[in-house]
């Protein structure tokens, strides 16, 4: 479960002054549900998710992730979260097995548990073929599958995905999408940010439209279609942000 309450993040920029990257964002994401955070580049998606993953500290407001407050118990929050982003890369000089073991140890797993979990993940994600080869020799697809294994090593109840399909080819992107669905089916709490409208339709149970740091609309796909009188997600998005995207 994720509960964000009036989450706000203000950055100080020497040239531009005060920037409200995230402004008073409140939403709830439940287990067995994929919450899609939809927004253009620079809308505040990454900042929101980084605050939930405790990489950034909110300027005001707060959030509870798997029962822990992000500002009070950041380590406990991170222990309950699997975070996967286009910007979270792997160590090129380690093998997939070593990567899984490293993050397993950092998550407090014992050697026995790590061995068992590695086998399980390698079976599920078909890693066996390259498990003992160095990551820097992998194809993009192999890297993605290894990243997923890294994210899941501690079997977290909450999963945060920040535009995980950016820069991936169709096949690699499909692997990710399938994996996100699997997480929902296993009753995990999933939050997924994207700027790709088609992904929202395919994946998300609840969609939050974020623009210039503010959450402008929220609801299931049906609710949003009914509210904006459009069936196409792109049209819904444009209407929600008041036709501003091109200008933005």
């Amino acid at each position, binding site marked *: 479960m994720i509960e964000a309450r009036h989450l706000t993040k203000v950055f100080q920029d020497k040239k531009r002054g005060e920037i409200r990257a995230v402004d008073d964002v409140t939403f709830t994401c439940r287990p067995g549900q994929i919450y899609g955070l939809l927004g253009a580049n620079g809308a505040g998606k990454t900042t929101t998710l980084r605050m939930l993953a405790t990489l950034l500290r909110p300027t005001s407001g707060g959030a509870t992730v798997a029962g822990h407050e992000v500002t009070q118990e950041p380590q406990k929050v991170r222990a309950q979260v699997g975070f996967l982003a286009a910007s979270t890369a792997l160590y090129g000089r380690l093998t997939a097995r070593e990567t899984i073991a490293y993050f397993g140890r*950092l998550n407090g797993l014992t050697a026995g548990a790590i061995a068992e979990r590695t086998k399980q993940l390698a079976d599920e994600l078909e890693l066996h073929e390259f498990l003992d080869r160095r990551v820097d020799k992998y194809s993009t697809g192999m890297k993605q599958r290894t990243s997923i294994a890294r994210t899941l090593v501690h079997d977290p109840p909450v999963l945060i995905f920040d535009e995980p399909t950016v820069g991936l080819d169709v096949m690699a992107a499909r692997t990710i999408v399938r994996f996100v669905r699997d997480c929902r089916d296993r009753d995990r709490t999933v939050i997924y940010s994207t700027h790709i409208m088609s992904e929202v339709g395919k994946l998300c149970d609840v969609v939050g439209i974020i623009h210039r740091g503010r959450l402008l609309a929220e609801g299931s796909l049906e609710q949003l279609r009914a509210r904006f009188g459009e069936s196409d997600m792109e049209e819904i998005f444009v209407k929600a942000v008041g036709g501003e995207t091109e200008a933005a």
Partner: protein
Amino acid sequence: MNGSNIATVYLKELKDMLRDRRTLMSMIVIPTLLMPGLMLLIGTVTVKVIKKASQETPTIMVLGGEDSPAVRSALAENIRIRLVATTPDWRQRISDKKVRAAVEIPPGFDTALEHGEARTVKIYNYEGEVRSGFGVNELRRFFNEYRDKVLTARLTARGLPDTFVRPFEVKTENVAAAEKVGGNAIGGMIPYFFIILCFTGAMYPAIDLTAGEKERGTMETILCSPIARLDLVLGKFLMVLTASLATVVFSVLSMAATVVLGGTMLLKSAGGAAAMKGGVAAGGVIPLLNPLGMLGVVAMILPVAVMFAAVQLAVALYAKSYKEAQSYLSPFIVVIVMPAVIGLLPGVELNARLALVPILNLSLVSKEMVSGVFHWNYIALIFGSTCAYAALALAFCVRMFNREDVLFRT
């Protein structure tokens, strides 16, 4: 603080580093093989050139002196030089290294000697050219002996003893212990090398583990794991410290091996007087340093290594990319070399105030320690203050790792 997490990070970074060819090059291959290899190569070539030059009989042209057969025949009889026919382009021939030197006998030299009049003999050489220098030495030796002979003849003719013109002798004798001589001569250089090696050894891993990770996108991956920032910093810090100390240890071991082996090799290959002198000096330097003092220097360098590792890690973390980090850290080399060089200057002696100046204090106290002088109060002050600086640097580094504007600087 969680020791197991620190160890996990440290061991992973160690494995990662050992698989990186660039680190291995900068940490092990270059200090252990390249530097001593270069030293040996230069040493061997130098000894060979000097040996060849010293074995050659210098060719000399005699200018003038047609009316002074005595000095000319004495020159011709000297087997240590070979006279060649004088040509008008003798200057050019010296410059072209065809002839080593020329000597000009002034007109009426023999007659002037008989009448007790002073004349000036002039030697023409190629300044700075080794073989020309050997020619000049032989000519000087010849004329000194020739002058002594004339002098002795004159004194005998007047019934005077040799002490008439040389009433007393002057001699110098060293009373300082051998290790003090060694300490004074190269004691200052030792911490200088240590300081530079210690700094450069930490530089590459410090950048790779911070700005390098940001650039490769692995920083965000590790930050979203449940490890505490403090444990992450300490694991990385220990790795940088290891690299720094490893560079020092590998360099020192290989240098020592080079000095001992190289000295012996040069002695064997050269055999000549010049090489003997060089070989003995090289081989004799290490035993001349106080061994306890050397251990002391190593102990004193530890907190300095901690300070370097922490500062470099913190500064490199601030950078967004590998290149940016390099441009921040490179100027630091000048900053740390300056106090190390000041410590080498003559007359700069250790006192309570200088004992608080980082790096300079190490340079000064090391010079004393390898000479076998132990001012324990200063040693304690320096060790204590350096530890305090190191602790501050480490605290600064931890603070930097807790700043999101540093970690996610855009």
